């Protein structure tokens, strides 16, 4: 899952991106509205965390510009917490609204719910044969016993599991599992796929040469 955080408070930006990266997200960051707007339009993010008061272009401006082209889930995270501001933000196209100061775990939960919904899933638990993926606890069990996956391995499983039965191209996987600072030409993805196959079974992820990967 790849996220974009647009926030001008650098300390907060750093803390949030670190926490979300630890959760297995690929995180891009932007410190002002202009940069944020550019990135949001250029990439397909799974969700965007957006501050309201931003330099150059404010959050509403970013949201308005984004909504003309994309339906990326957006959660607004702002000090403007009054009911009227919430309504204004939601009307402008935000999918959720969280007022500062906030609880990091609440932000995580809301992000998770947004991503799950936008992938068309209503439940936290995805069961594929003997494998069960818990998107809430971010863990995977094989025949009832937990499997130790790294955060990045888990992200790959979750991404494919949420799109079960669909062929997902390598480009799409690169777009959603690696952030802007990682080199997409490397063979990191192949390494990760083979590691997951070792842990969850060789047939768990199928490869169609030239098309991509799929969990049947």
């Amino acid at each position, binding site marked *: 899952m790849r996220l974009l955080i647009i926030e001008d408070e650098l300390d907060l930006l750093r803390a949030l991106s670190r926490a979300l990266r630890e959760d297995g997200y690929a995180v891009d960051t932007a410190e002002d509205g202009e940069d944020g707007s550019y990135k949001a339009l250029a990439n397909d993010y799974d969700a965007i965390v957006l501050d309201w008061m931003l330099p150059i272009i404010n959050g509403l401006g970013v949201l308005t510009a984004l909504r003309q082209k994309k339906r990326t889930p957006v959660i607004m995270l702002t*000090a*403007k917490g009054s009911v009227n501001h919430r309504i204004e933000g939601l009307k402008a196209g935000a999918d959720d609204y969280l007022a*500062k100061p906030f609880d990091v775990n609440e932000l995580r939960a809301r992000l998770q719910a947004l991503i799950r919904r936008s992938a068309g899933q209503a439940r936290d638990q995805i069961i594929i044969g003997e494998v069960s993926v818990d998107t809430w606890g971010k863990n995977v069990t094989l025949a009832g016993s937990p499997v130790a996956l790294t955060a990045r391995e888990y992200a790959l499983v979750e991404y494919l599991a949420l799109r079960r039965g669909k062929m997902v191209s390598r480009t799409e996987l690169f777009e959603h599992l690696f952030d802007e600072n990682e080199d997409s030409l490397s063979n990191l993805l192949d390494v990760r796929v083979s590691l997951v196959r070792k842990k969850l079974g060789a047939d768990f992820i199928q490869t169609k040469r030239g098309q991509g990967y799929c969990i049947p």
Partner: protein
Amino acid sequence: MKLPVLSIRARIQLWHGLLLVCILGALGIAAWRLRWQDELRRVDREIDEVLSQMHDVLGSTRQRDETRKPASAPASFAMPEALAGRVAAHGGYYVLWSRFGLVVASSEHAPASLAMPKIEPGASIITHTRGNGDVREGYLFTPPGECLFVGVSISAERAALVQFGWWLFAFGGGVLGIGMLVDAWIVRRAIQPVEDIISAAERISHGKLSTRIESDTTSAELERLTRVLNSTFASLDQAFTQQTQFSADVAHELRTPVSVLIAESQIALERERSGEDYRDTIATCLRSAQRMGGLIESLLDLAQIQSVAHAQHSPCDLAALTNEVINSLRSTAAAQGIELRCTLADAPCEGNAAQLKQVIANLINNAIQHNQRAGHAIIETSLDQNHAMLRVSNTGPGIAPEDLPHIFERFYRTDTSRSRKTGGAGLGLAISKAIADAHGASLSVESTPGVMTTVRCTFSEV
């Protein structure tokens, strides 16, 4: 003694009632007395007439007896029928004494106890009221010394007077009643604006601060009171709104550093981390706490300047103060690559040196922080027609026209300049404005975006 609490209306009515009772009482008594005196005069006139007619009759009797010794008393006196009837009609009586005190003639009803009055020289007719006031008597001494005496009953007059008294009482009561009704109406009308004021004040005390007194009173005092109260309410309302806005602003400003504190600590505590990570977290928390501390300092400054309008003012020179500030900011400017161009001419003014330096430092700091890379700031002091003046210009991106009117408001940041890297708490200009106001100085900004932004501080004449 504490008087019971009465409404103004009741009090005014009470006093008006008392006053009316006194006036009516005095008038009634006067009317009553006049009537009584009038009655007495009428009776006295009757007595006079009877006496003088008796005197005439006595005179003619004396002429007939001319042959007798002139000094002797009349042997007889025949009261004419008509005159006797007239006296009797009044329930009266008559007596004639000789000059030796012998009764020459008297009517049947004359009281037996009646004695001849003493001669009072010089007086002709004397009247007086006797007994229990039921009888009015008059007497007359003839030149030879006889005494003519007439008494008339006045009980009918007295009865009429008592009736008149009752009539006066009833009339007075009626006038009093009507008077009080009219008075109640007048007082009610006069007090109405006060009632309006009370109900407006009550609404305000219940928290509806936007309430104003709407009164179309025509009395000057109440009109003034209404005006004064309305302006008081307005300033209360404004102060309250400002206070509310201020609290909201403070809460809003604290949100961001608090968010950082909470997020940082929460994330750090989630799992075991390296020493460096902890150091980073603590450093971030410290920065946030320091920012909150700075915000609190600035707010206290602002509150103090606004509440204590007159700090100690003494003559000082704007040029010298500016020079001091520039010296302390030179390294900051150099670090940002900003060139400071100064033209400092003597500019004497009255003020608090520490506060003025704060204004100067704020303005120059803004000129440095909001400047473009490798830009310059122009700092000038001068004396223009006895007004000391400070001008600080910078070559930064400038301020949009729609932001200009708000630039001195607390926590106002133009959206484009609002970056944590350059922006402070958003209180610098508000503090500068408060200090300028306390010094009777004016602070103005003009900006041509992208070219030049100038803040001008003009002091009043020294």
